[in-house]
């Protein structure tokens, strides 16, 4: 497998070398080379030079040689090749606090409960701690009612219970402090086992903890709002449901996201779903585990259609259409018209029909190269 890929890379290199060519004439002189290196050429001149560079091995060799010479001069001569603006963006000293702030912010946003959503609890404590909760629970089930989150337990939960129920609702300030601790604890839990990427942590903490992303102690429990009133009797139920949670995890995971667009394929085990921020997720085991992909960063997909396990079409706002034929690599498909797409139906890799927000339908039979208005 690897050597096949190497062959392909080599073949690609050869082809590109030939196609790009080696013009070797009308090469700019040292003024342009130096100015480009220093980034003192303006946009047009720079683009013109890059156009030449792409096809001229000689000039690229010269640029490489100049780059080698660009070492700092202790006598205070020419400074080294200035790094561009962007690399400092990745400086961890800056990025980490920003990422942390973003995570907290994202949790706050995600915690706005939707009325119909059943509350979910993430218990980060040991299962046996659950039975102790009723003791510290207030008798009337009011006040600090983050269930089952007594102040004594440092491992808190994120409570997504709906608003508008006066008695189980927590008073604003304790809950907000706990929310922050929740989010950071949950973020830590997610981040420690998931790859340390900001996006993973963001997605995990925003109420969408993946079963595989959590530590072994983290469970997901679904509770009805009314059960919070029955705080004392909740403990055996909590224990049972904590232990039973693992078993029902897969079902729970899919259920909790039933409002999210699920794209089914002919294989019942293989599903796609649209997540936020341009991400999509795909499962191959019926929803027990999901793998995330990023077809187009920041896209807002609204619909999808998967005619096979590996072919999936996505459509969304802002003229967004994307297609994968191998369940891995995505390509943007130029839209028929600039529009927000709200639906898509595809029968295979070449045939699909999209619907715009204003009800027009366009169809393609060549994978999106040509579109026809459907009358």
């Amino acid at each position, binding site marked *: 497998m690897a050597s096949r890929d190497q062959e392909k890379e*080599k073949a690609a290199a050869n082809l590109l070398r030939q196609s*790009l060519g080696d013009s070797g004439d009308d090469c700019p002189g040292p003024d342009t080379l130096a100015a480009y290196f220093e980034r003192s050429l303006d946009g047009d001149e720079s683009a013109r030079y890059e156009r030449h560079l792409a096809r001229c091995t000689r000039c690229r060799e010269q640029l490489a*040689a100049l780059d080698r010479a660009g070492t700092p001069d202790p006598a205070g001569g020419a400074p080294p090749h200035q790094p561009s603006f962007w*690399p400092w963006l990745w400086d961890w000293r800056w990025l980490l606090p920003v990422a942390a702030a973003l995570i907290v912010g994202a949790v706050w946003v995600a915690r706005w409960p939707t009325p119909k959503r059943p509350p979910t609890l993430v218990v980060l404590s040991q299962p046996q701690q659950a039975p102790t909760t009723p003791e510290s629970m207030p008798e009337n089930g009011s006040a600090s009612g983050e269930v089952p989150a007594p102040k004594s337990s440092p491992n808190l939960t994120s409570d997504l219970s709906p608003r508008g129920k006066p008695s189980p609702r927590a008073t604003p300030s304790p809950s907000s402090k706990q929310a922050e601790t929740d989010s950071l604890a949950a973020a830590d839990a997610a981040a420690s086992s998931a790859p340390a990427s900001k996006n993973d942590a963001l997605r995990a903490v925003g109420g969408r903890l993946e079963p595989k992303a959590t530590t072994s102690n983290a469970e997901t429990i679904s509770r009805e709002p009314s059960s919070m009133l029955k705080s004392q009797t909740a403990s055996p139920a909590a224990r049972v449901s904590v232990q039973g949670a693992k078993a029902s995890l897969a079902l729970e995971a899919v259920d909790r996201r039933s409002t999210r667009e699920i794209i089914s394929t002919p294989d019942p085990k293989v599903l796609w779903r649209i997540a936020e921020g341009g991400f999509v997720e795909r499962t191959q085991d019926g929803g027990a585990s999901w793998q995330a992909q990023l077809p187009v960063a920041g896209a807002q997909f609204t619909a999808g259609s998967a005619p096979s396990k590996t072919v999936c079409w996505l459509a969304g706002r802002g003229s967004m259409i994307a297609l994968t034929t191998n369940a891995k690599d995505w390509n943007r498909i130029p839209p028929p018209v600039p529009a927000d797409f709200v639906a898509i139906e595809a029968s295979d890799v070449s045939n699909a029909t999209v619907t715009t927000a204003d009800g027009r339908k366009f169809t393609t039979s060549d994978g999106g190269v040509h579109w026809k208005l459907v009358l």
Partner: protein
Amino acid sequence: MTQFRPELYRAARAIAGEVNARELADSLYADLYGLSESQGRRKSLFDYFHGQSKLSTWLRAVLAQRHVDEIRRARRTQPLEDDAGAERQEISTAAAAHASAKAPIDPERARYLAVLQAALTAALDSLDPRDRLRLAYYYVDDRTLAEIGRLLGEHEATVSRKLERTRQAMRRRVEVALREEKKWTEAQVRLSLEYVCDEWPFDLTERVRSTHSRLQPAAEPDAASAPD
């Protein structure tokens, strides 16, 4: 003014390696301080400095260009040294054996590859110049992501991401060109890509050239160029 002479040597060493540095720097120094005469007037290389960049950068650029031109001239005209020549001989015989072991060049295959090449060229033309340059750095000059990032002023991760995007765009455009303009079927497209992956004479010629170019100082990129 002479205090920058050591700096010139330092730059020359970085560019051309220890062995060639002195000659490179000295010849430039001479041209700068007008030790040559033209039309009865002392001419200095400084006359060609137009202030588009810092003087020190310009001087290094002159060194870089002179060095590379010298290298390329040497590549074209000089016969290979013995051990490289022997290696080349080995590769040639191996190549010949390999070529004859395979079927003789199939005209069909040649046609497929020519069409693919044309589609590729067209797809390259449609790219943004910067994306094209990034591809050239990676595939032709064999640079690492870090080096490309430095040359383009991008973060390494950005280089990787953009290379991937460009690759995908290229693949799509080539396939579209082949299917739409040439009316190739899926099978034909796949077949042509198979042909590309097989060894064929062009590839071996490139390998010979790149071996030749390894005579250069260690820092020199292994840039195999098309026939000059």
